């Protein structure tokens, strides 16, 4: 059930690891354009609630999505640890706000499992797969469907 996009041609592929609430998440590195600190955010009136606003990324107006809001998690005060991961979805740029960006990890193909995580309540369509790194589980997100879906996503913390 591992989607093609998540698998590099080699035996392992790289993930950007980040934290949201108490869980560890990963996005395949080829989907990520850059990581920024949170600067000035312009609110976008009338946009869906999880859209934090827009940011100026070298002259481009890029929408910013708060992943906590997207997943219906409770809001916490932002600190310097909060980061924006800029992802590329069908050639369009989106920023997503996460709690902390940890590191880039290589993960072997055999350590990835398609098992559904019953604990997080994240629906299968938003989930790419589950990875195992040093005994901890990483939820690999299908960031494209998370951004494009209009559906409400709720994660129990």
């Amino acid at each position, binding site marked *: 059930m591992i989607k093609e996009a998540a698998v590099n041609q080699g035996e392992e592929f790289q993930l950007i690891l980040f934290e949201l609430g108490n869980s560890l998440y990963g996005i395949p590195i080829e989907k990520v354009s850059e990581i920024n600190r949170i600067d000035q955010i*312009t609110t*976008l009136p009338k946009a869906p609630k999880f859209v934090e606003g827009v940011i100026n990324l070298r002259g481009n107006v890029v929408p910013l999505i708060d992943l906590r809001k997207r997943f219906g998690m409770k809001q916490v005060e932002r600190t310097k640890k909060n980061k924006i991961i800029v992802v590329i979805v069908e050639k369009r740029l989106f920023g997503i706000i996460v709690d902390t960006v940890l590191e880039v990890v290589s993960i072997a193909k055999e350590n990835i499992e398609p098992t559904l995580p019953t604990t997080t309540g994240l629906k299968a369509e938003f989930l790419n797969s589950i990875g195992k790194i040093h005994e901890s589980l990483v939820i690999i997100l299908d960031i494209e469907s998370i951004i494009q879906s209009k559906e409400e996503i709720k994660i129990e913390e």
Partner: protein
Amino acid sequence: MAFMDDKRIQLAFLDEVSELLDSLNARLLDLENNPDNRDVINEIFRLTHSIKSESAIVGFMNISNIAHKMEDIFEKVRRGSLKVNIDIMNILFSSYDRMVKLIAGVQLGEDESNYDVSDVINKLKEILQDTSKTEVKEDNKYEELIIHKEDGAESILVKKEIVYKLDHDFSNIEKANIEDALEKGDKFYRLIVTFIEKCDMRYPRAFLVYNNLLSCGAVVKTDPDLQSEQEDEKFGEIIIFLLTTLDEQKILKAVDVDQVKKIEIGKIELKALVKKGFELSNIPGYSEALVSSDMILSDEEIKDGELIELEWENQIKEQIKSLKKDENGKSGEKNGTSGKKKQLLEDATIKKQTIRVDTDRLDTLMNLVGELIINHSRFMQIKNNIIDTSSLSDIKSTLEDAANDLERISSLMQSSMMQVRMVPIGYVFSKFPRVVRDLSNMLRKNVKLIIEGETTEIDRAIIELITEPITHIIRNSIDHGVELPDEREKNGKLREGTIILRAYQQGSNIYIEVIDDGKGINTDTLKNTAIQRKLVTPQEAAGLSKQELLNFIFLPGFSTKEEITGLSGRGVGMDVVLTQIEKLRGRVEIDTSVGVYTKMTIILPLTLTIVEALLITSNNSIYAIPVNVVEETIIIKQTDIKDFDEYKVYNLRDETIAILFLSDLVEFQKTGEAKEESDEVFVVVVSYERRKIGIVVDDLIGNQDIVIKALDESFKNLEGIAGATVLGDGQIAIILDTSTLVRSKKKELSKAAEKLMRMDDVNFGELYDQLNPEEDKKEPKEKKKVSK
């Protein structure tokens, strides 16, 4: 990779062929007006030929086949053996339409060969077959030549002609022979010998003709080749190329063989040989041949032309009589043509790709220019900071120079980039002669279309979106404006109505006018309809100005036309036109005089990418409002804003305007910071549906040219948000579309408020006075007038 190349070739082809099709459309229209113009006929022949071969190269066989059949028809028209009439023109136009649709389909990524074109092909074939019947008549042009024969007199049909174009190719040896002979003064003939249908032993007879001709001169070539082909079936007709010094009479005698039905004898002009690559510079008359026109009319052809014209007129008359019948028959015809293959979209049009620059690259460049402008503003800001704080005069001057340079470069880049995006509006206008032709034919009206200012340039982003509104207005003009010929005559007008389509630039706007000399719009009718539909009370209606009455036309579902025609008058129309034009940040104006004219003017900005906007703040965010909707900005006292029901109003120079708060319109979540309650507020007065509305903002920043950046597609549907722009300091300002913003808010407002907005000024003024009896009317302080 091969696939990629194919794609690229196809794209190049699409460019090329859509240009050819445009010309074809224009020439077909010319031909309809001047059916005997040889230049036009030749041009059409050339165009159909090019379309045929170009589309065959890239494998678009459907298009190629249609063009091929059209070429065949024009080959006959050229030779004078076929006369175009209105039936044929209609079929030619529908064939043209089909090719346009096929191209449009290809542009949408459809496979051209999936479509069924047999209906069009069959119709074209019918024309060709019809002419073969009339070709019997054409045979009358053959002189009857009675040559002495041993077994009694038998007639042979002979046609003498001059050959300007050769279909055959010659080998180098043949060429050399011909060139030598011509230099010696020989004449070069093409003979087409046709045997009677029941003719037996055709090959021997053909060989006999050949042998006889050998005594007259040199036979260069025969088609079919007598040396390699010997089967009788192939020799129904034989073409012989002959070099001789003898005259035509003697040649004919030589060809006179038993069972020959007709002979075409054609002297080949040098011009025809030049085209085939002959080296003829030593031959007298060569230079004239080079410059002589392609078509020299023989007396015969001129006579034909006159005949065609006469017949043409008769046919048009008949056609008009039978039009009604045709219309009834059409539905049945449609069912008949629905084949198994896909049907194309009805309103498919070819998208213009005239600028041969990859549009992605163009957009990237445009973005870069945008960034450069932003960068420039930032640069200027740094400069100002340094100048204010530092004493290093050297740095100051260098930086100032650099900044000035940057300003120069960026403004140059901006304007040259704009140039690239501009295309002549003629690309859109060129489709309207056809629209007018079809529509006036259908409605039995006589309409002349005059096009002016087709070189006026307009942003290509706009051009694709204005075709539909203009088409709509022109349809209205023909359907509702221009009267039937009899009616016009009764009113002392020319039977032929005139529609003027005109474009011109004034300042930073493009004006597109559609003027018809028809019956005009009766404002009394509009008034009555408005009252009937309870849009206004009779009292209110009495106070409405002509312009306000005319504006009813733009309301959805508002139509005064009792009889609904197939084209317009259903009431869906002008509101769609207005919505579309407003989307392009333009507006529509109407002017009319009953019985004299109606003039619709579309006013559009030159470009959609850069706009002058008023920057304002509200709730600590910066917003931009395009200045074309801003009437003025004023500072007024809080206390001057009055409550009317639940709504706020303000009296601006005796005009009551509704007051709305931007913070309500954009629905912020309140930031919590308590706004300082000042006794004065800033109000931006904007036009809204031709009335004024005041929008309260926190502060005014000023006017500035901004580069519009579209928001991500997922936010395309945010009502009232037109995009975003990046300011000099890197901040993002959201661009507001106040009309949509107010409109979306209005949905929530009660009907009472709607009524209020429409209410007549005078009446409302009275109401206002009643509500605020002791209010002294003070003139508002005007902070700044924004030029409109």
